[in-house]
């Protein structure tokens, strides 16, 4: 029954909400403090400055990507490729000085590991080292691009044949990069005995909304490709463009594998 003051209430609610949100946002650090401090005891293991090697191994080559500039310095990735597969990834350049040393120490080994495992630039950012991760990804992509121009997909598959020692029939084929409205999509498949044993996207739309969509759609598409064994796969709803591009690139990879 006390007098109500609608205007005062609106002003108070707005001010309280806005200042609360701003306070929460400003309390968040620019980079993850837990990750940075945890890096304290990690031994120094930056890959920068190591002499290029690998010429000794038959069928393997090193490719160095373009240096990608980040807010904290340049990142440059060098790959050792054997039989169309990344066998080693290292950072020739990475941010240095101050906090960056710690972050580089922490992030670069993880990123190297991820690059080898993924075999593509589709790797997760290391939390607390977003800029370094982003630069790493860009340089890695450029290295992969160079690798492809140097050895086109068809010859890539033949070189895979020459270096294969374990599984006689398994080989990887990379499809054409298909341009979509949101960026290129490129599919790489591992074929064993005329069956697709593995499918992955070497390239997929990135940035903004696309990150979320790629995260949602690509694993499903990979799964579908392996299950269907052909390019006759369903589009993932909400990611039609990516799905269409994926399908086309997959078809081109299958054409190469079949031919």
């Amino acid at each position, binding site marked *: *029954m*006390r*007098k109500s003051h609608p205007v005062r*209430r609106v002003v108070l*609610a707005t001010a309280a*909400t806005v200042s609360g*949100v701003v306070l*929460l*946002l400003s309390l*968040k*650090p*620019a*980079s*993850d*403090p*837990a*990750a940075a401090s945890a890096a304290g005891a990690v031994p120094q293991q930056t890959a920068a400055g190591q002499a290029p090697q690998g010429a000794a191994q038959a069928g393997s080559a090193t490719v160095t990507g373009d240096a990608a500039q980040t807010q904290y310095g340049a990142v440059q990735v060098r790959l050792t490729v054997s039989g169309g597969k990344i066998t080693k990834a290292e950072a020739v350049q990475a941010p240095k000085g101050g906090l960056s040393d710690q972050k580089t120490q922490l992030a670069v080994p993880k990123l190297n590991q991820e690059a080898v495992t993924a075999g593509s630039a589709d790797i997760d950012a290391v*939390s*607390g080292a*977003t*800029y370094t991760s982003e630069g790493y990804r860009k340089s890695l992509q450029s290295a992969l691009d160079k690798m492809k121009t140097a050895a086109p997909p068809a010859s890539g598959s033949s070189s895979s044949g020459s270096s294969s020692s374990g599984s006689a029939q398994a080989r990887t084929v990379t499809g054409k990069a298909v341009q979509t409205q949101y960026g290129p999509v490129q599919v790489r498949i591992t074929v064993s005995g005329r069956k697709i044993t593995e499918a992955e996207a070497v390239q997929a739309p990135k*940035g*903004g*909304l*696309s*990150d*979320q*969509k790629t995260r*949602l759609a690509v694993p499903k598409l990979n799964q579908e490709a392996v299950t269907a064994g052909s390019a006759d796969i369903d589009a993932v*709803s*909400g*990611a*039609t*463009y990516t799905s269409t591009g994926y399908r086309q690139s997959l078809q081109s990879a299958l054409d190469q594998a079949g031919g």
Partner: protein
Amino acid sequence: MTTTLAGGRAARRQTMRRIRPRRSPAVPLLLAVWAGAAAVLWLWWQNTPSIADDTGRILGAGRITGLLAGYLMALVVLQMARVPALERRVGSDRVARWHAMSGRYTLCLVLAHVFLTMWGYARQAGKSLGDIVQQTVDSINQLPDMGKAALGTGLFVVIGLTSIGPVRRRLPYDAWYHVHLLTYAAVFLTFWHQITTGNDFAVEPTAKTFWYALYGAVTALVVWYRILTPIRLNLRHRMYVEAVIEETPGIVSVLIGGRRLHRMGAEAGQFFRWRFLAPGMRFSSHPYSLSAAPRPGMLRITVKAIGDHSARLRELEPGTKVWAEGPYGALTAQRRSRGKVLLVAGGVGITPMRALFETLPGGAGDITLLYRANTTQDLALWDELAAIAEERGARLMYAVNSPEGERPDISAENLRLKIPDIETHDVFMCGPPGFAQSVFEALREAGVPARRIHHESFEM
């Protein structure tokens, strides 16, 4: 003399034994609501290790507003689920005001969430604020459940627009009410994108479980208390119009018969939402207070013919079937904390006061009723009130305009003059908002603490 005094004391003690004030659960409920909001913010805090730049800040603000909106939306629906603890303990009027306030606030949060998130996405894709519309269209096309969410948000905006003061006053009540029912559809449509695209629910299975539990519980309460409980009540009691009586020009009483009506659990001072199954009336239900304590075969409401609906009550045929939901309202004897009670009625606000005047326990002189009306002809139910006063030894006073149309002076001095120990009374009050406000101020000035002035107002 001594015997009378002793008898008076014994009666007083008897009365006091029957007064068990129950505290309103409003404070613990509000604390729980705040704790829930804090938990939601904590969820965001846990899942956001760092924010690198302005885009991150914009998206962070978008996530916070989105999470809070999703949380509050469940509570806004819960407030209208007719949960007895809210309707009968906190009070339907207070809960309705909470609902209006939090509804507006939630709508603002939803709009802020949409704007901030789309702006953030546009920035991430290297576009400017001007591309926000295109970004929204893209998101709707590409992200899961976003089409539904956009439709739901559109409904929220329509519901919000029809509830703005001037628009609502111009709309017929039924139109406004049926648009408002779309809230359920809107909440359903917007729920799914929270689960499928919400960052915090993607990474935290516990959070997802909690969210499902929150919405599931609210759905269960709505189904139980808004649908099943009324069906059971009406199947059990089978109410119908027994008679319509004109009390004074413009004020009618409707007598309602049915089975075992005393078993409905209704108390004096409470109301039901009534739906009369007569042509042109079956699609709207209206809240009217009981104007007499419930009897085994009879309920009575007394209504002033001000609106379209209340004017039609006069033409109700005996035998018309009645669908009722209730009882609701917290203006009951439970609120009382003292032995002495002053009831203040303005105009047709006499209805719940009349029921309380008859039933509030108390000895001679404990209960006083002050009845305000324009003229003595407008004092509806006066004969009954006089009879009750006579029988109980209660005091009955009225205040009407002078023959020249001058309003009576209900001031602190006058109140103290008539009721010297007014500050020891509990006051129950029902009347038009302006009247209630001025009496409230006079009572406060006369020394009655605000916590002992019990009032129900359906003004927003």
